[in-house]
């Protein structure tokens, strides 16, 4: 069974896989980045208090 | 005269004095309804098919236009704070405020909708059904409007936000309202949609004022 053609629906199946992967990746990375930015914000707030 | 009657009369008198704001809603309602046949064709069965959606959509647009002046003017002149500071429950006072706003803004729409229905070749008892649908639909719309207005009191440019809040919550009313009008014109049994509209009216008049009162307390903070 040829993996990429997927019975000539390959484009649809793989693009839905790709979009899901990208969206999950964006959410994960933005979560990590948000945490570090809040950390810096708190440090900054802590220093000038 | 207890405080609720006082507030009711005061709000009615104020909305009469602010007739220009009411007029914008009525003009929007009549305008959209009259423009549709001009641009989309005006043969009878086509107009019978589109009268339901047109009437509901124009009442939604009319309520959207005049949504600003439910609480904003009272916030600016300070009477909303006096309302919050009254000994009576804010939900009751807000219910009266919404009721008087509904009477001043939506009852004219019911009257105008009879003219529009006759312009759409609707005859006899169906005009009364169309008016009843607008009556029932605007009650729920006015509650969702006042909740959205109360939530966005503190926001500087609330236009887009209000529409975004209003549209999903008013979708069931639009669907069942246009079906109610369509069934009444086709002569089919209209009890289903009307039960739904009445149910939504009762739900929104019972929960709406409580949520709106809480939203006002938050926005005034």
């Amino acid at each position, binding site marked *: 069974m040829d993996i990429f053609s997927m019975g000539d629906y390959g484009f649809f199946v793989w693009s839905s896989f790709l979009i899901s992967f990208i969206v999950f990746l964006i959410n994960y990375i933005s979560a990590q980045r948000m945490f570090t930015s809040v950390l810096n914000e708190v440090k900054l*707030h802590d220093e000038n208090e | 005269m207890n*405080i609720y009657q*006082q*507030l009711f*009369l*005061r709000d009615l*008198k*104020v909305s009469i*004095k*602010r007739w220009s704001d009411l007029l914008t809603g009525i003009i929007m309602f009549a305008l959209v309804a009259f423009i549709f046949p001009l641009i989309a064709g005006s043969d009878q069965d086509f107009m019978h098919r589109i009268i339901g959606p047109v009437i509901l959509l124009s009442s939604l647009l009319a309520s959207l236009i005049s949504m600003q002046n439910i609480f904003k003017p*009272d916030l*600016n*002149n*300070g*009477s909303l*704070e*006096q*309302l*919050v*500071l*009254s*000994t*009576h*429950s804010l939900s009751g006072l807000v219910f009266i405020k919404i009721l008087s706003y509904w009477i001043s803004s939506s009852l004219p729409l019911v009257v105008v909708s009879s003219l529009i229905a006759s312009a759409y070749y609707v005859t006899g008892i169906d005009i009364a059904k169309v008016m009843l649908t607008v009556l029932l639909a605007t009650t729920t719309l006015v509650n969702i409007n006042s909740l959205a207005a109360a939530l966005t009191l503190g926001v500087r440019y609330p236009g887009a936000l209000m529409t975004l809040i209003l549209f999903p919550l008013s979708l069931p009313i639009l669907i069942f309202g246009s079906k109610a009008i369509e069934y009444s014109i086709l002569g089919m049994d209209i009890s289903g949609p009307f039960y739904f509209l009445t149910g939504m009216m009762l739900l929104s008049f019972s929960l709406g004022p409580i949520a709106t009162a809480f939203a006002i307390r938050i926005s*005034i*903070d």
Partner: protein
Amino acid sequence: MQSDVLQLDSASLFRDDQLIFSDISFELKSGDHLIIKGNNGSGKTSLIRTLCGLTQLTEGCVLWNHAPIDTISSDYYNHLAYLAHTNGLIPELTLLENLTYSLHKTDLDKDHSVLEGFQLKHSIQSPVATLSNGQSRKAALSFIIMSGKSLWVFDEPYANLDSQSIDYLNQRIAAHLSNNGMVITSTNREEVIPTTNLEITMS
């Protein structure tokens, strides 16, 4: 009027992470007049709004007769009359309509002596929109004086008032205090107000 007491113990308010005021305490008994001094933007209005329960404190709480006001708000509001920067009058209605439809317990509708004191008698039929700032300020003041409530809270009452009205206002406040009433006033000017015995200065 039996003796009520309004207490505030170590109250502080933050807007997100901006400090508005911190650790303010006072106790106001019947017959006291508290003056809140401070220049613009020092948090006077925020403090007054927390006293009226419109704004939530971040720490500490407001006690009316030793009970927090958000649990007994309807009883507390029975005694409270609040004058904000905005006068709470509806511009479209006339002064008389505002009076009759006002939400305070105005059982003194007929006797307009306070309005005479503020020389507003002649403009009672004119819409509030046509009144000047000073006049509508005096009208709002007279509503509170006529409301018959025991705790008066004024936010900068002396702004744009002429001297004759200021004397009349002080006179009425003195009468109210002698009648076991309580008054809280905020001002950003330094002039001494005769009847005050409690003072808070906001930094």
